[in-house]
């Protein structure tokens, strides 16, 4: 069976856990050769081992996307390893569940560095490689919190809103190169990051119930829900889709 990403090479940041892990595994099942980039070395290597055990192709590189040298190196690694780069999933991200007054400058900088500068750097170094193949697809993880507000995620909202518009800029700047760029806006997804948000709440059970209230569909999303959206945007099936947001949120923002 021909996979939907047969022959393509994909680089996935934050690929060691959560949405990135699910996407790496799905992309590999669909025929892509996958580079998993993450700061979590042990988990990243475990994802790669699982992909290989299932008959797929994958490699791990340690990369902090907020560092220019790392971003450059992860792109060069993908090209050296697999000969090209077709897909970049700028998925690495960090949360910070605090309102403005309680957010420290260090926290603000960290969120903006990983969530925004990381996307910029990945894009900056991936595009020249994609041009060599006559095109490519970049997928950026924004969030429903890049679309609507909430009372307690100042830096996170700012960062995800930035990703949403950076996506449109990239789409327009590189449409002529046949490089598409789209954002995914996940709702509340059961990931290690969401577990972290809950654990930082005064009462995690109450917080969980309150988050559930916000999901009209009556469940939280699963990492695979996002992975399938990323697959659509990565594949040639979406070759006329660029500069847009794919909202995968159980109806959160439709209210």
């Amino acid at each position, binding site marked *: *069976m021909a996979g*939907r990403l047969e022959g393509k090479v994909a680089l996935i940041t934050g690929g060691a856990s959560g949405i990135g892990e699910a996407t790496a595994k799905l992309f590999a099942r669909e025929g892509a050769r996958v580079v998993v980039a993450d700061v979590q070395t042990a988990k990243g290597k475990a994802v790669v081992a699982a992909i290989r055990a299932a008959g797929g192709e994958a490699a791990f590189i340690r990369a902090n996307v907020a560092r220019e040298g790392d971003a450059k190196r992860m792109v060069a690694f993908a090209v050296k390893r697999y000969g090209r780069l077709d897909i970049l999933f700028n998925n690495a991200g960090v949360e910070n569940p605090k309102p403005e007054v309680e957010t420290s400058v260090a926290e603000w900088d960290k969120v903006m560095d990983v969530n925004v500068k990381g996307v910029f750097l990945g894009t900056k170094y991936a595009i020249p490689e994609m041009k060599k193949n006559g095109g490519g697809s970049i997928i950026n993880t924004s969030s429903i919190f890049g679309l609507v507000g909430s009372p307690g995620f100042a830096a996170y909202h700012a960062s995800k809103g930035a990703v949403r518009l950076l996506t*449109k800029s990239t*789409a*327009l700047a590189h*449409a*002529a190169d*046949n490089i*598409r760029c789209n954002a995914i806006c996940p*709702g509340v997804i059961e990931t290690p990051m969401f577990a972290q948000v809950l654990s930082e709440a005064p009462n995690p059970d109450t917080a969980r119930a309150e988050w559930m209230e916000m999901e*009209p*569909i*009556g*469940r939280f*999303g*699963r990492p695979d*829900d996002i992975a*399938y*959206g990323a*697959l*659509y945007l990565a594949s040639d*099936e*979406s*070759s*006329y*889709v*660029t*500069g*847009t*947001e*794919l*909202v*995968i*949120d*159980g*109806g959160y*923002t*439709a*209210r």
Partner: protein
Amino acid sequence: MAERLKGKVALISGGARGQGAVEGKLFAREGAKVVLGDVLEEEGRRTAEEIRAAGGEAVFVTLDVTKADDWQRAVDTAVSTYGKLDILVNNAGILQMEGLEDITPETWDRVMAVNATGVWLGMKAAVPALRRAGGGSIINISSISGLIGTGMQTAYQASKGAVRIMTKTAAMQYAKEGIRVNSVHPGPIDTPMTTGLDREVWQMFLRSVPLKRAGTPEDVAYGVLYLASDESSFVTGAELVIDGGYTAQ
């Protein structure tokens, strides 16, 4: 092959030709049993025959989307022929180009009847069957004309804007029943609906599309397939824009 819609039954309005026919063929290749509804009977029967000749399952039913009885018959056909209904694609639509002062009340009514009332009637007829199937997916074809202003197409834009927000309220109403409702917003697509347009206007339009080309019916059909399949089971009340970057500017 993947068969992303294996075991599912889909009803597609405007399924005789153009975008709807391409959706029907793609759905059938992905394992769905397809009911094509349209006012174009000869073309609709031929499209269903082509799907069967390619090894798929499809039937045609006469469907004027402005008529509630026609919708009921189309849904009944799906259930009696294939046992249930899982997917509704409200794809039928008509184009209208005049601006606010030039459009006649008759044209206004006709465009709203097909593009907006037709979508409502389709959902109204399909929901009980989707509920009996334990949930389902409704895909309403809106347009970039349901998102932004073009300075013309007054009735068309009003109708497509109606589809956009009707989609969201239906998504909210049926979220807990496992019935998802999403809209698709194509940009300029090469279909029988757009071939009648003045070629100079069309080319001018295409020059302002960042990807510098018109979309194909396949471009739209793959987006509809994603929303129809269980791969999008956490997607509801959303808009999928397939426009070559036009509205990102």
